[in-house]
């Protein structure tokens, strides 16, 4: 299934010479182009890509690594699957360009185990790139050499967190590391490493071809460019859409022909629930931030069931390393089961919301810091509905 509603950047076919262009310019110029474009990490955290590359570039080490995070596990997200399947060139060449920019010799594509069916196709594409001298030694006749290896995950959501992903690449349990030090200094095997989302590499490829100025015309001043959204749930036309940052939730709902919408979960299980009254809010890093997941709920949906599903997910996927996340998620889920059994006071739920806020502060990695988000936002907007239905 192709990307629906290709707007700007993924509509361009004129990107053949991106790799050549990058390799014939100075690495620092490539980094600067990305910095000027204002590109921010497309996995959801939104760290400025140019800054990440610059930090890795200025780190002193005899080896550096590029990692493409294709451990797309956030519920409701499937854009990376489509990018890998149909825009393979953008992703892999984007990795080569990143490697050239920071001075790395090797890249990894960390592909989630659930997408194993893409493995052969991607491996073949890498072989083709090597034959065409777009990968391997002396790429396109330059002095630059770079190769990519595909590594599979084995069904662990937490490995989407960059330091857990690196642990997994090193052959360990996918438990997040303390940060700092950050991977740009101390990453894979202790060497400077950049970990970027699949979409980030694809977009970087396009920016190199078309220029930062062209790219930053799209979107808002704080969130330049466009975003791929994976839209699912109660609508007529689910799929992957490309929209400029600054698009409102209600415009997105029109795009996918959603009717009688009660709420939209933006950012997946670790994201926020936006109720109808706030549909004029926009998808942007400064407003509603997302790695791409948009899940639509219509009027018939029971928000308690939705929230239970999210909390069951986190209880299963918490790596168990730190206490706030390991115990906290269980407590939040138990509270929901109490509501289901009509055995819960509203004031206890308010206590759990406070617990959630503590988890946001006290958890070690992004998983535990964001897992209370749906609990807090759904209770904020729907506690009366949830309690009055029982």
């Amino acid at each position, binding site marked *: 299934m192709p990307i629906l509603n290709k707007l700007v950047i993924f509509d361009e076919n004129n990107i053949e010479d991106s790799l050549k262009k990058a390799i014939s310019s100075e690495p620092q110029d490539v980094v600067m182009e990305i910095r000027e474009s204002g590109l921010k990490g497309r996995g959801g955290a939104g760290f400025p890509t140019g800054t990440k590359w610059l930090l890795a570039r200025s780190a002193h080490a005899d080896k550096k690594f590029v990692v493409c995070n294709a451990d797309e596990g956030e*519920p*409701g997200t499937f854009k990376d699957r489509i990018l890998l399947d149909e825009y393979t060139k953008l992703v892999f060449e984007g990795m080569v360009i990143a490697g050239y920019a920071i001075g790395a010799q090797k890249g990894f594509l960390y592909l989630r185990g*659930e997408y194993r069916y893409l493995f052969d196709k991607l491996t073949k594409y890498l072989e083709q790139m090597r034959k065409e001298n777009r990968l391997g030694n002396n790429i396109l006749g330059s002095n630059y050499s770079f190769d990519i290896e595909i590594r599979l995950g084995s*069904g662990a959501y937490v490995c989407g967190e960059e330091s857990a992903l690196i642990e997994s690449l090193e052959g360990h349990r996918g438990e997040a590391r303390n940060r700092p030090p950050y991977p740009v200094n101390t990453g894979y095997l202790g060497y400077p490493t950049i970990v970027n989302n699949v979409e980030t590499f694809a977009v970087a490829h396009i920016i190199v071809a078309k220029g930062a100025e062209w790219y930053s015309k799209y979107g808002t001043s704080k969130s330049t460019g466009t975003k791929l959204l994976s839209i699912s749930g109660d609508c007529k036309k689910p799929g992957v859409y490309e929209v400029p940052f600054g698009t409102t939730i209600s415009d997105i709902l029109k795009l996918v022909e959603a009717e009688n919408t009660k709420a939209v979960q933006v950012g997946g299980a670790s994201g926020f629930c936006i109720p109808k009254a706030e549909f004029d809010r926009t998808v942007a890093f400064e407003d509603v931030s997302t790695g791409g997941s948009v899940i639509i709920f219509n009027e018939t949906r029971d928000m308690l069931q939705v929230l239970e599903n999210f909390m*069951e997910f986190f209880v299963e996927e918490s790596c168990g390393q730190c206490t706030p996340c390991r115990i906290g998620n269980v407590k939040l889920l138990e509270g929901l089961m109490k509501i289901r059994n009509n055995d819960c006071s509203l004031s206890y739920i308010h206590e759990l919301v406070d617990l959630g806020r503590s988890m946001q502060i006290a958890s070690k990695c992004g998983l535990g810091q964001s897992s209370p988000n749906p609990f807090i936002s759904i209770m904020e907007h729907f506690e009366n509905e949830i309690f009055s239905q029982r």
Partner: protein
Amino acid sequence: MLVSEKNALTIEIEDLTKSFGDQRESLLPILQEIQLKHGHISDFAQQEIARLLDIHPVEVYGVVTFYSFLSTEPKGRLIVRLCQTITCDLAGKEAIANTLEKELQIKFGETTPDKKFTLEYCNCIGMCDQGPAMLINEQVFTKLTPSKVIEILKKFN
């Protein structure tokens, strides 16, 4: 386990350490290959991998038990993983779950007596626009209905 089987497994693991390398970073690819071929990673396999990578067996056990696609216990040749996450749930996962349980005559988490099918739930497999969805080994099936499930299972019989 017969001595000859043990030797064969050791040789297999030695070959894997030759192709992937015998450093710690090769642990996951080696485990994934053993899991794929044998349906689980036995105590003996874990010990042999540990010996050949020169790490403690507990390190190997820790990794095997961390990842949901790796297992210490034997599973069926075909692992049916039904997505239980939100969009598939809303799209009618429950009916599919019931159909699978009835057709295979096992509950989730169980393996059929002929060791052919193991039935499991899994979290989001990135098919949210086409739910309910499931994986059978690495193959993906989408927009499931009870009758479609029956057709799919027939193909594997």
